[in-house]
């Protein structure tokens, strides 16, 4: 098994290098002088020349890439053109909010989505199943920003139950009560992304329910609860876990919107601001880090498989 995990880890390396090449080439795909584009219309020729030298645009492209890539391996993503600070430091400063939102939303998706999927499968074709399936499809069809604005209008503006925007750093204040700032953003983010988990849990539970060993378990006289939890749910868990990687990608996209709607100081909003400011080093850094996070999550999921499914473990 260790061999499998090592092999799986090594296979990540070429993907990472390719991702880095792609992210690097983004900057060189634009027409014209990247330094002039980044500084905008108001820049003087001297400023453009200075940035060109600072970024190393004068050198041949493969040397530029080699320098950029070795920098990244050492944790140096370059400097932000707008903040004049290292990109990695800016990302770390903004990471708290985004991590809170991502982890809490993921928890919400699993805690709500999985049981709904299980109930839909057990009560296949019942009113509950049809209602949940319909609700899941509706949730997947609602734009995140629209849902966020509506929730804000209802719960923050009209009812006044929850704060409408912002998020004071819990890391600095230590006040866990400030998590209330994240309730609306997390619900906004979780709703559209839970649809996939609900549908997949339902589908894989239904597949397992048709297996012969479930009939055997029932024939043995096991209680329905026992059959559902021990025989069906456990075996359907594997395909549910496989979709968590996809959900992460959905959450990363959704965070960009949610943070903009609720004016939260996170990485998602940083990306939007950086796109508007044409702060390319920041965009490159964030995208590469998120792509690596996705690869690592998939690696962990594959490792989970080997624990959960003895067939993979043995082979």
């Amino acid at each position, binding site marked *: 098994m260790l061999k499998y995990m090592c092999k799986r880890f090594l296979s990540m390396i070429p993907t990472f290098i390719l991702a880095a090449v792609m992210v690097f080439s983004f900057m060189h795909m634009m027409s014209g002088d990247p330094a002039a584009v980044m500084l905008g219309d108001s820049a003087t020729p001297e400023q453009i020349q200075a940035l060109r030298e600072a970024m190393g645009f004068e050198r041949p492209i493969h040397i530029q890439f080699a320098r950029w890539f070795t920098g990244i391996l050492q944790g140096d993503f370059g400097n932000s053109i707008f903040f004049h600070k290292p990109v990695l430091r800016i990302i770390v400063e903004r990471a708290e909010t985004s991590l809170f939102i991502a982890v809490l939303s993921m928890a919400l998706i699993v805690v709500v989505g999985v049981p709904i999927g299980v109930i839909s499968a057990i009560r296949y074709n019942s009113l509950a199943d049809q209602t949940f399936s319909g609700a899941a499809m509706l949730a997947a069809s609602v734009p995140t*920003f629209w849902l966020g604005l509506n929730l804000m209008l209802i719960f923050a503006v009209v009812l006044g139950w929850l704060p409408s925007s912002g998020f004071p750093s819990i890391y600095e204040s230590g006040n866990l009560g400030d998590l209330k700032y994240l309730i609306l953003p997390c619900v906004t983010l979780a709703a559209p992304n839970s649809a996939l988990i609900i549908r997949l849990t339902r589908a894989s539970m239904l597949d397992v329910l048709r297996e012969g060993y479930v009939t055997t378990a029932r024939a043995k006289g096991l209680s329905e609860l026992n059959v559902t939890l021990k025989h069906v749910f456990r075996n359907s868990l594997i395909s549910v876990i496989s979709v968590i990687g996809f959900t992460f990608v959905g959450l990363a996209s959704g965070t960009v919107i949610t943070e903009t709607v609720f004016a939260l100081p996170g990485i998602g909003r940083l*990306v939007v601001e950086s796109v508007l400011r*044409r702060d390319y080093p920041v965009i490159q850094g964030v995208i590469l880090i998120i792509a690596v996070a996705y690869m690592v999550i998939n690696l962990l999921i594959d490792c989970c498989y080997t624990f959960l499914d003895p067939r993979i473990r043995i082979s």
Partner: protein
Amino acid sequence: MRDFFQALVRRKIALAGSGVLLVILFLAIFAPVVATHDPMGLNAVDRLQNPSAKHWFGTDHFGRDIYSRTVYGARMTIISGSGVVIYSIFFGILIGLLSGYFREFGLVAMRLVDVVMSFPPLLLALALIAILGPGLLNVILAVSATYLTHTARIIFGLTLKIKEEVYVEAVRSIGANNRRIILRHILPNLVSPVIVQATFTFAFSLLQIASLDFLGVGVPPQVPSWGNMISEGRIYITRAPGVLLFPGIFIVLTVLAFNLVGDVLRDKLDPRFREHLSEIKR
């Protein structure tokens, strides 16, 4: 009896979905006739009004008629969504088919596809727009980048399967060349899954495009698109909730309609590929 009832309900839902899509298409084509006002026409006197007989959906902060802008928004939706579908399906088929048929090409191309799929779609689109600049065509290109990889993945998997079928072996043995096998024997078998994929691509890309408009990096702000309208009106949602409500409802209805129709199409057109598609749908 129960099955019959369910089939009827499903057909009704699909029918309702198709109905909504036809209405949106009608609005898009006949926008100048259906609209009651000029979608760009400013009117300082009638600012931020609630729905009335004169302005059915109310007005925005420039006094522009929300109903007329929503109608014209349907046009933008159809144009941009079709753009993404055409781009992503064409290049998706091209890459997927060649990758599935020629193993060496497939090894490299599918690796690249995997890498692109590891970027969150919205972030990838944002990065591409940062390079290409805003504007309708660039938005279409940026959003297509993600969805063409999804199509390529599906077509790749199907091509691998079809390539091994006996009938392909048979035509090869009577001397058919690669071009003939691909165009005459593999491609026609991909039509059904492509139609299903196109429907879902339309639905997802609409959400994506609306999000980009909302973030202010899509089509120019004065252009009446549903995402733009919500983005511009969000500061005034307490005074004129119509700015938020109506374009939003239209987005939800359109995406939902595509999803419903897509689901039924998937069941009807190609049950064989159903599992395969649902695996990679997102």
